[in-house]
């Protein structure tokens, strides 16, 4: 078993809103091992982004974060800003959906990469510049030495995302968190960016956390997957097990709702995602679940081993076997 690099335990994130406290993350446990690509999937409002913003220490001060996040032996919850600054970009990096807003429009690309290098490593300006050009080459930017002297507006969307990846991996972090990195891109460009992420993962052994709503992207690149619903982790396992015999009713519903070749009628999940200001008691999915029983409104279910998956459903054992989506 590969070494655990990131360990999240009982993470809770609460925001104070004018309408009262909103608990966006409600007790997430999650492990990332070195060199693996973990997919995190969930719909809007499921808490998938907030979980990792909390991990990075990037949430606004009004967010109350409790629990434990251990990265390579260091506790990040409650860490000082100075400690976090030293971790971010060195051990832990994050890329986002919109690469343009992640880049500074008035600085050259090469300088932005060098800045990242020099803030964590003792490098001369010229060594940093050389390394920056190497990094541009690694992420597949042609003519890297010329491109390093250009500004963000001279790059296309796909090329900008490559630059952002180059910055994120500059110091060879242990974990790269990619939050919907291809959602703003066209599908042919998405394919290129996913390839770059896989290449980085293989070449440097970086653990990658890929947050997405697209189960196709998960099926293409992930080793393991984590399904989130209403601020909780409801199911996790290897992609093969999860697509072959999902056991949580939400995972089943999600997989069954996707259009597939052939003209069979789609099966939507009834109802809509819960209002997190006032989530349902017990299992938050019980209001939409076709298998719900009275017991589901009782206790908040935790992840329990179920075959080769871990599932947070008290009725998992009693449910009929799911169809296979693999």
């Amino acid at each position, binding site marked *: 078993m590969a070494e655990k690099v990131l360990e999240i335990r009982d993470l809770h994130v609460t925001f104070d809103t004018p309408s009262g406290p909103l608990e966006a993350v409600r007790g997430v446990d999650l492990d990332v091992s070195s060199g693996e690509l973990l997919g995190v999937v969930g719909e809007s409002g499921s808490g998938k982004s907030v979980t990792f913003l909390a991990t990075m220490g990037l949430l606004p001060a009004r967010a109350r974060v409790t629990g434990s996040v251990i990265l390579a032996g260091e506790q990040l919850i409650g860490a000082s800003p100075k400690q976090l600054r030293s971790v971010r970009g060195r051990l832990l990096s994050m890329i986002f959906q919109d690469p343009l807003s992640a880049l500074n429009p008035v600085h050259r690309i090469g300088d932005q990469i060098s800045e990242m290098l020099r803030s964590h490593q003792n490098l001369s300006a010229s060594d940093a510049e050389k390394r920056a050009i190497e990094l541009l080459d690694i992420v597949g930017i042609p003519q890297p030495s010329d491109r390093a002297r250009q500004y963000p507006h001279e790059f296309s969307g796909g090329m900008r995302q490559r630059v952002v990846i180059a910055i994120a991996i500059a110091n060879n972090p242990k974990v790269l968190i990619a939050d919907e990195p291809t959602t703003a891109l066209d599908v*042919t460009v998405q*394919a290129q960016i996913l390839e770059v992420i896989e290449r980085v993962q293989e070449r440097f052994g970086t653990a990658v956390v890929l947050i997405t709503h697209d189960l*196709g992207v998960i099926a*293409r690149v992930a080793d393991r997957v984590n399904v989130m619903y209403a601020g909780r982790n409801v199911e996790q396992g290897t992609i093969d097990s999860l697509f072959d015999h999902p056991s949580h009713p939400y995972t089943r519903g999600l997989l069954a*709702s996707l*259009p597939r070749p052939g003209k069979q009628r789609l099966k*939507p999940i009834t109802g809509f*995602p819960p209002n997190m200001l006032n989530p349902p008691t017990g299992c938050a999915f019980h209001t939409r679940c076709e298998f719900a029983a009275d017991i589901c409104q009782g206790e908040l279910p935790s992840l329990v081993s179920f075959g080769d998956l871990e599932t947070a459903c008290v009725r998992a054992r009693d449910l009929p076997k799911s169809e296979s*989506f693999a």
Partner: protein
Amino acid sequence: MSEELLKVTNLVKNFELRVNNGARRKKRIVQAVTNVSFSVGKGQTLGLVGESGSGKTTVGRCILRLIEPTSGSVEFDGQDLGSLKFEELRALRRKMQIVFQDPFASLDPKMTIGSSISEPLIVQNVPGDHSDKVIELLELVGLSADHAQRFPHEFSGGQRQRIGVARALALNPALIVLDEPVSALDVSIQAGVINLFEDLQSRLGMSYIFIAHDLSVVRHIADRVAVMYLGKIVEIGEQQAVYEHPTHPYTKALLSAVPLPDPKTERSRHRIMLEGDVPSPVNPPSGCRFRTRCWKAQDVCAQEEPMLTIRPSGQMSACHFPES
């Protein structure tokens, strides 16, 4: 194919772009749509797919004359829309409706759902009290009568999209342009809205132009599919022919780039990686516009523009070296 409802011939839309380059002012032309022709049968769904900048939305808007086309003709039920006077066009518009992508921006936040839905009836001077019609429409799209008094902010994205559909249905249109109607919705909600489109079509028999970048959704809903690249149709035909036997290299690459929700298939698939990005429509490549990213491109592709030609599986594609 069933009887023709809409016929688009050689549709062109150029946008003028004023570039203010310091002291010099330059005028540039964006060729958003170039010589696009297709037809849609009664009760049929045409899927219009392509990446951003391919012109699919512009085509949709030109059909309704929400944007004036630069040239070309759009015939609706035998009438040439371009020749109509404003009042005539307005009367005909009741037969053609549109549903937009963003269910948050397409409803007036200060209007109740009921008045949003009945507005088209008022605009078109349909006599009488519309409250029964509003209730009928709300129920048709899976909402309930008491929703009519509420405001948009009280609804979720999926519900708002249903309201947009109810409004589009108010005048019993023969054609609805659906412009990315499910892209803003969560996956679990998408399926319900797609089912709604299918149910409405089988009950009411209208035609759809379904514009989307999500190829799996289009495969599910469309009878025929047109693939656009940089303002032109590169391949068009029956859904099955285009998806199962793509003949244009771009169609093939596009289909292979779509990740499928099935890890086993994903691992065994042969993937075509396209180099680079879509070129600018301000200065599109000569000849075949796809040639700069095409692995099959030869000299002839730069010199001669390929014409849409019928292929063995029945669809048409514009390529000098079609896949077989």
